[in-house]
């Protein structure tokens, strides 16, 4: 078996036990990248030289008998909106095409401290705005399960990289489903932790009150291991929560005895693809068979999540993206006659269509005279959605819903109507609005062989229960053992 196809947990053990050298692991991953990356295009930047240099250092320390960390020597990919010191961080935008941060994001520092090696920076929708990675200015990432289809988004590069065995794990960010939806499309595990569990310091902001960093992995156990490394309070991010450290790996078991799984029947409506619905019904049987009690619950306000999301997220984005003005760094237009023109031309040329659409939406909803009708009202609805989930969790331990109403679509399928694309986030967005943790695990395939994801949602900061449910589901199915062929299909 090739080294690159192992799980994060297994490869970390092999390195620690000196069954393999870190260089052998890197060689395996980079030769895999050399083989399939030309077809998949998951990466914007590869950090090969840095990686080998670091591998050498880590190996030396390991050979000296030092503890090099729980992820010692393991190659990991980072989404290109997470700042990496002296490595370009582009947000897949022309605006930041040549931007190199001078500091590391907290999560990058934590991964480094745990011994991980960065293999590269992954492609994404521009500034994380999109559900297909098609809005990237740099390149189009293909779905390893069918190269004619999208990998989902916005963290499509990270999902594709893990799915195609080009990294053992990857970091993504999730504002409205940007980890879970591509995880679902690419048949990998994608975890969006509770808002505040992971430091956002160094994550280039899209929507500050919704953004959260999380891991892509091949298994639920690997996700728990990644969470152990990156979770925890950071004094550089005052929205990060000072909660007790939990070991997410220990105690994972393959049954759900005594657990109640909530099924929000009022939320699963007509818009859903019939294969996804079938997979979901099967998933209900799976958790029942694993020992869980299934409980019907109501999420009557969840249907307003998308509307709420497109007000709050765009409002925050319109402000967060103001700093890209061509003055200090990033893209600056060539010809301008005064300051206004410098701003207008730089931003017009530097941002793509989707980003500009959202900046305009956000600017509009915050405008004087419209604030109360849109932003304020959206915040009120947000509170209702939070309460809605709280109430639901009185009757169950976790909620299970599909990750997305459809499976991966062909490139350009939603070009004509951005709204259709927005609907792909219908099952993921409520979780961000309520600040809850959610995870997508492989849950089947449609009749075209494209992956389907099943999503679990838990109470805030109850990742332990969330991972337990996901793990039991995974252990009672075998979808996660299927590998993509990395070729063009229907």
């Amino acid at each position, binding site marked *: 078996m090739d080294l690159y196809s192992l799980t994060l947990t297994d490869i970390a053990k092999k390195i620690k036990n000196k069954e393999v050298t870190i260089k052998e692991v890197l060689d395996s991953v980079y030769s895999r990248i050399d083989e399939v990356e030309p077809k998949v295009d998951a990466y914007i930047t590869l950090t090969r030289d840095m990686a080998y240099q670091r591998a050498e250092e880590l190996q030396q320390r390991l050979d000296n008998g030092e503890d090099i960390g729980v992820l010692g020597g393991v190659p990991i990919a980072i989404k290109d909106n997470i*700042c990496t010191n002296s490595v370009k961080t582009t*947000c897949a935008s022309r605006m930041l095409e040549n931007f190199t*941060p001078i*500091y590391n994001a907290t999560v990058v520092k934590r991964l480094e401290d745990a011994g991980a090696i960065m293999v590269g920076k992954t492609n994404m929708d521009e500034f994380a705005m999109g559900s297909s990675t098609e809005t990237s200015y740099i390149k189009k990432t293909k779905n390893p399960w069918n190269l004619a289809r999208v990998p989902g988004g916005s963290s499509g590069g990270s999902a594709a990289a893990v799915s195609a065995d080009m990294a053992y794990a990857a970091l993504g960010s999730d504002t409205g489903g940007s980890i879970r939806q591509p995880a679902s499309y690419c048949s990998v595990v994608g975890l969006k932790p509770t808002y505040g569990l992971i430091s956002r310091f160094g994550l280039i902001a899209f929507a500050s*009150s919704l953004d959260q960093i999380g891991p892509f992995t091949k298994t639920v156990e690997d996700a728990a291991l990644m969470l152990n490394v990156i979770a925890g309070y950071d004094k550089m*991010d005052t*929205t990060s929560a000072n909660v007790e450290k939990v070991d997410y790996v220990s105690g994972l078991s393959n049954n759900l005895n005594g657990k109640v799984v909530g099924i929000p029947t009022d939320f699963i409506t007509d818009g859903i693809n019939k294969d996804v619905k079938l997979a979901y019904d099967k998933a209900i049987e799976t958790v029942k068979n694993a020992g869980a009690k299934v409980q019907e619950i109501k999420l009557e306000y969840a249907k307003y999540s998308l509307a709420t999301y497109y007000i709050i997220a765009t409002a925050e984005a319109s402000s967060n993206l103001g700093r890209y003005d061509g*003055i200090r760094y990033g893209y600056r237009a060539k010809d301008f006659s005064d300051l206004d023109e410098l701003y207008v031309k730089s931003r017009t040329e530097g941002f793509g269509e989707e980003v500009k659409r959202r900046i305009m939406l956000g600017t509009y909803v915050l405008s004087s005279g419209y*604030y109360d009708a849109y932003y304020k009202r959206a915040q009120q609805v947000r509170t209702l959605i939070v309460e809605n989930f709280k109430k639901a969790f009185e009757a169950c331990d976790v909620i299970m819903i599909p990750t997305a109403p459809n499976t991966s679509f062909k490139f350009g399928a939603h070009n004509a109507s951005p709204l259709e694309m927005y609907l792909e986030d219908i099952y993921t967005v409520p979780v961000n609005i309520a600040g809850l943790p959610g995870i997508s695990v492989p849950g089947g395939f449609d009749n075209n062989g494209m992956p389907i994801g099943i999503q679990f949602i838990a109470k805030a900061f109850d990742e332990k229960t969330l991972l337990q449910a996901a793990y039991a589901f995974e252990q009672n199915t075998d979808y996660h053992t299927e590998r993509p062929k990395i070729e063009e299909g229907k």
Partner: protein
Amino acid sequence: MKDYEVIIGLEVHAELSTKTKIYCNCSTSFGADPNTHCCPICTGMPGTLPVLNEKVVEYAIKAGLATNCEISRFSKQDRKNYFYPDLPKAYQISQYDLPLCIGGHVDINVDGNKKTIGITRIHIEEDAGKLIHDAYTGDTLVDMNRCAVPLIEIVSEPDIRNADEAVAYMQTLKSILEYLEVCDCKMQEGSLRCDVNLSVRPVGQKEFGTRTETKNLNSFRAIHNLIEFETKRQIEVLENGGVIHQETIRWDDAKGVGYAMRSKEDAQDYRYFPEPDLAPIVLSDEYINDIKNSLPEMPHIKKERYVSEFNLPEYDAEILTASKHTADYFEKATAACNNPKAVANWIMGDFTKMLNEKEIEINESKVTEENLASLICLIDKGTISSKIAKQIFEEMFETGEKAEDIVNKKGLVQISDEGAIKEIVKKVVEANPQSVADYKAGKDRAIGFLVGQIMKETKGKANPQIVNKLLLEIINN
């Protein structure tokens, strides 16, 4: 011409004298090389997040308590969005609808008349950077050292009616902030500055007139002159049948002229919304009480104490306590020489005149409190005359030398030895028989001439009381 009433409200910006900036650990000190006091956070690099400096909250609460404001137990920070090259995030973090302090007031004193000026609110916010225009190349450069230096904005009610009241209000605020040691109040460096909102209306009219705003005035003189100018301008416009536009005035202090900038700026929509990167500021009663208990003695309390403890006239006490620096100086010097009235007289007299000429504050003077005290002791002991003391003080002011050293170096010790003075008196009396005769004929002025001659002989060092006594004795014998 109708009678007009002037309505003025001030928005005062005070830079807080915390060591570090409001959302990062960069230094706030003034005058460093451009772009040396900044980091990824205060320059708004992608991915960075603000962390509120708790000292800023503490200082703002101090200002709020000292101006009789209600301190909000729950307040939040908001983003004020606009584009400008000195604003690296394209938004300023400020406070919009839930400021830290609300509803206070201060008492001001104009020509002995007391008046209360309402304070609408005090909120915390970050300063912007500075643009430097290079006249030679035509380039504009950005210095981000001042980015995210903490500010409080103190917004007054429209209770001010003329330039003198505005200046008195500003002076009162300056004094309070100095006493609290929350702002160094160096107006010439911009650490205390104000925006003037001004409108006029015919006396008796209920509605306010349209107001203009003049930003960033950083001297009492500029505030005073701008108000006089703008009041006159607005009245003239109305008298000529014109209308006042809501606009920004740019004040040229050197020329004493304001220019209306009919700019788009007034139409700007700042799109305020709650700052999602910062949690709300929630304060406990205990925290606020602790700050309340730590407040220093404020000027009006100190003034009463000066009258009762030092027996000073109210007028002196008022002047000495107006500035914390002056009050501190006064107390230290008094403790060292035990002659409060003399210290007060020195400070209020020549000393202040000289400070004003040099445009420096008393704490920046070369004359230390101890040195002024020992100068006063020398007079009190009769070692030097008060006339000589003035000369000595001038030198102390220039060089910072000690009074004793100057006295010794120049041999300025007062001659109080009656024997020595008597010889000189005799000599002068003998040399001026005509003056003696004039005095005896009833011309009292002649005595002054004789004293002058004696002082001239002694280079001013003779003890004047002894000179007077001996002169009269000798002539009358």
